[in-house]
């Protein structure tokens, strides 16, 4: 992803829309890779964050039964908002979440949410 961005964009990105896998790990990896390329004040959208809470997804045989909820990433990004300069606003609608980039420059390639969202050594139980 990072090489693709370096190739395709000569300036910071104004708007990112992630409507891809909707899986926790993949979406988190994409966020960590791409968010540093978003300009301050730009917006990163994550679509369909709430699939794990739909009625069909509660079935044991659901085709994403072994996948972690994308909501886990939202919880972590809420914690990340406590750090000044990274995310300065979070918008939430059914199926649509967005994160407005703060003024801090984030390290490209090495930005990791878990390293910034401090939580007193305690870990979220992922659902």
């Amino acid at each position, binding site marked *: 992803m990072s090489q693709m961005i370096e190739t395709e964009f000569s300036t910071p990105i104004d708007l990112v*829309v992630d409507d891809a896998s909707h899986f926790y790990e993949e979406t988190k990896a994409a966020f960590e890779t791409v968010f540093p390329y978003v300009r301050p004040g730009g917006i990163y959208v994550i679509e369909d964050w709430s699939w794990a809470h739909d009625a069909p997804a509660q079935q044991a045989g659901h085709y*994403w039964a072994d996948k972690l909820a994308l909501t886990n990433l939202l919880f972590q990004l809420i914690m990340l908002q406590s750090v000044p300069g990274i995310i300065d606003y979070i918008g939430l609608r059914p199926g649509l979440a967005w994160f407005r980039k703060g003024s801090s420059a984030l390290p490209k390639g090495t930005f990791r949410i878990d390293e910034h969202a401090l939580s007193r050594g305690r870990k979220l139980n992922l659902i």
Partner: protein
Amino acid sequence: MNAATREIAGATYKAVRFAEHGDEGIDGATAVREVWPGETRSIPEPAIANSLPYQFTWHGGSVYGMPETFRHALPLRMFTARAAIVVGHDGALEFENGLFHQDSTAFLKPHVPSSLFRRQDDRLWVRSAPETIAPTDKYFLGFNAEWRNYGHVLTDVLPILYFYKSELMREGYKLVVPPLPEAGVHDQLIELLEIDREQLYAMPNDRVRFNDLSFTTAISLWSQTGLLNIAAEALIDRALARAGDRAQARHLPDKLLYLSRQDATTRRLLHEPGLIKRLERLGFEVVLCSQLTLEEQILLFQQAEMVVGPHGAALVNLLFCRPGARALELFPEYCVQPHYRGLAAWRKLQYGYLVGTSFEHENSRVVQDSWGNDFVIDEDLVIETVAGMLASRSSARAATINLGEQPEPRPAVRSITTSVDAGSPPGEYLVSDEKITFGNFDIHLLNGDNSRDFVDRDDVFFMAKNTAYIDGYQELKDDFRSRSLAVRTILEIGIFRGGSAPFLHRLFNAERVVCVDRMPGPVIPLENYRKQHPNVITSRYGINQADRTANEPDDRNRIFHAHRSRGR
């Protein structure tokens, strides 16, 4: 012995020469009727992976099929020869003038010992004797050289048998069928189609002379007639009727089937057990089609919601799926061809495919070419694709949105003026539950479970977002505007049917929209839009969102693109 004959293994063979085809007939036979010419209707392009090239690989080389042959059903032409010879179990046809019908030799297997054909010095030879003479009557040729192959029998021979059953049987024609008592699936077709066994003429493995023999143009998926669908429906009806209560008890198609090739000697998926384990967790059951009768396969595939399998004859059972069922074909690297894609289009299925990597394994059967090589494929990608294809049916997304929408009734159509990003011209869009319209440009919206209506439509734009999403994006636009910021550059991760990129472009009046997707692509509607806006839209396929560095497609996709680019 002259040049036209030779001794091979103690028997006399003569050189095969082919008859000329003309508009009116063949040199040696007369065209006597044209069947169901009205069946030249168009058939839709398959869904999901609509990028499978008509180019395919064959024995390591590249071949192009004619796209039109997959899109239109052709009429079936019947010819009659006054005296002709059918050659043994090969079903090939020699006319009174000594010339051969070229179509009927297309699938000969001269290396099979029981074949009366041999290849030597790049020429085709045929046993010149002995010869049997069939009792005087009028006959119709009801098989070809592929009558042992389950896939070919269904696509090539079934329509001919159905034609015989519905037109010629009552006219008193005798049906010429394969020679062996173990006629297998061919015989099961005879049974299911309720063809009168009194009217069968079973070939001996010999050359048989008929005084009045009718036959048709060769049928294959490359030149298919509308009879295939009709014949398949007839078979399905008959199988359901015979199953009686068992069939009546069944409900909506809900079976997820994985077609194993574990009993095959070629093109085996080397890590199949691992993949099966993961598919079973999604509710798939493993099917070994070779263990089932034709009737059992028909009933099973009637209940299939999704079928996944490596390229092979079992996939011909897609013929028996209900319209809208999903099919995912797994290709070895050197065996990519659109045979079943065409079949899926005929049956209005949602079709997808993935290409693996062919693999020389120490247990691989030694084959003369790479066509039969075993292969490996990215399991994660298979699972992800399966989930994606199933999601379009009763998507979590649709459920979420429907719930969220209920409290707020909205007018059927409303108008929103989108004035302006800094420096952008004012724009306006109309939105209804069905579509969003920018000027005269429509993008269809998710509305309940309608995504299935659009997965095979390359001619319209569709995005899996409903009006609630439009509201959300309008809020984002207002947010940018309130801060006097323009949205000039957009990165979209996840392309799906390609309608959302034009939406983002138009809504935000962006200068550049880069779209990436893990699937090999291309997504036709997006590519059409990109061609109209070459400086704005960029599409990049084969890039995984979880791959932090990638700029190039995964290996499997590079292989795929290499296949494509070779012919361009």
